[in-house]
């Protein structure tokens, strides 16, 4: 006999509101339906009522974790419409903040995954590491969530002493190598909760169009930082970690290895940062009529913004945002098929879902 177990929209296993209707036979999940939109904010529509300064502040609120990525993608789109090119130093600062944000996001996720595994000590370790990253973001921007770094034509704040950030990068790298990666890869707790659980095959990942670490953990080697470089990524050397297994452990490993790659990118960007201006100045910005699109590799995967402007308009006529969780979330249905009911919280968390992004 099958029965339905509703998980959510408000549930201890979920960080944000969404609903998973699980059809079970005994303890085994046979089907699942996902429901989102419990906190839909209509931000795309709101954007049509904001000018080019206000719209940056608005889109920074799409997500509380990858807020910088949203303004970066938006500004890159608007720079195409205004013809403004950020100075080289601004492009490096954009890389630094984007990678710090990736570190913060991945370490946060590792902590939450550890908590869902019942591994509370690891949760505390990860959150202590995350604090170090947050401290650096606060030192650079003055903020811990919405950094307000991006503007059309560059960035708002300089990194006065890039080499000072290196100390945090080295401390984080050391702790990842010494503690986090070995424990996540060798401890029996992590292995028993993650290996062979929540498998998304390469074929299904392709079919669902998943992005970011979720795709790379299913053997798809896609990363916009390498495939379509933006900011100063074309000047960075890094690897794109790919795992073939498609299970929770693969998603965990991909993110852990990406933390190491982010540290590698940060070290290059901080040591090679060119001198000079950080933006194109305060002259009046004129928009050409038309549509411009930009894509960026956010911590959870690819973000795309399409921005349209009409002649002499103050506000955009359309801002469309495709967030990574919007692409990844439907694949959870396939991940939980045949899984044990007790594993579903960790499986759904393994895509690092952001309902704030999804309910934009």
């Amino acid at each position, binding site marked *: 006999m099958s029965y339905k177990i509703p998980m959510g929209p408000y549930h201890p296993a979920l960080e944000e509101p969404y609903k998973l209707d699980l059809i079970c036979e005994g303890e085994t999940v046979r089907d699942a*339906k996902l*429901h*989102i*939109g*419990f906190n*839909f904010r*209509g931000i*795309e*529509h709101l954007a049509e009522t904001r000018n080019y300064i206000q719209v940056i502040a608005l889109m920074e609120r799409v997500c509380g974790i990858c807020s910088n990525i949203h303004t970066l993608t938006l500004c890159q*789109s608007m720079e*195409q*419409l205004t013809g403004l090119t950020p100075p080289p130093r601004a492009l490096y600062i954009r890389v630094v903040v984007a990678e710090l944000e990736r570190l913060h996001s991945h370490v946060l996720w590792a902590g939450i995954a550890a908590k869902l595994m019942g591994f509370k000590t690891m949760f505390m370790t990860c959150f202590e590491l995350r604090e170090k990253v947050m401290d650096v973001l606060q030192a650079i921007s003055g903020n811990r969530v919405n950094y307000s770094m991006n503007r059309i034509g560059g960035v708002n704040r300089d990194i006065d002493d890039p080499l000072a950030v290196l100390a945090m990068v080295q401390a984080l790298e050391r702790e990842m190598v010494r503690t986090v990666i070995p424990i996540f890869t060798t401890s029996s707790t992590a292995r028993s909760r993650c290996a062979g659980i929540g498998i998304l095959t390469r074929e299904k990942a*392709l*079919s*669902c*169009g998943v992005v970011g670490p979720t795709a790379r953990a299913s053997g798809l080697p*896609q990363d*916009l930082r390498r*495939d*379509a470089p933006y900011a100063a990524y074309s000047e960075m050397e890094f690897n794109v970690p790919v795992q073939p297994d498609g299970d929770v452990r693969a998603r965990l490993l991909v993110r852990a290895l990406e933390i190491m790659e982010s540290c590698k990118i940060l070290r290059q960007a901080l040591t090679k940062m060119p001198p000079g201006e950080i933006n194109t100045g305060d002259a009046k910005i004129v928009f050409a009529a*038309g*549509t*411009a*699109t*930009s*894509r960026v590799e956010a911590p959870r995967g*690819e973000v*795309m913004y*399409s921005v*349209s402007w009409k002649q002499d308009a103050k506000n955009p006529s*359309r801002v*469309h945002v*495709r967030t990574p969780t*919007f*692409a990844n*979330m*439907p694949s959870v249905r396939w991940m939980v098929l045949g899984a044990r009911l007790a594993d579903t919280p960790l499986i759904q968390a393994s895509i690092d879902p952001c309902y704030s992004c999804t309910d934009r």
Partner: protein
Amino acid sequence: MTSLESIPETLGITAPLVLKGGVHWLEPGVMTVRELAASMNALQARFITITAYQLPHDEGFRLEYHWDLGGQLLGFPFVLAGNSIDSIYDLCEAVDWIEREIHEGFAIDFLGRTYEPLLLRQGDTPGVNLREEVK
């Protein structure tokens, strides 16, 4: 991997590929959206999203379909005089949620598919979120 330059010929489209605003645009001409989706599958392109625009003066809608091919973003605009267009859900699973969202946001019908309950929770009437006037 198919080169960008050869895509119009591969798709049987005479219009050239135009790079504008970060997208390689190709006017699909007489090609239907379902033929396009099947061709994109054959090229192993990755579906990205559909962006919907409401055109002024009751001129209908424009749907821009985006696929990624080797890191390059392809765009195919389709203008709808009415409120409907064929769904490509059976050809491209990744399109499911964005078709549902556009259906709810702009009241556009994607023909040949069924809709599960609303993605956007507020309200029961499709088109209330992004369309200027619900008809």
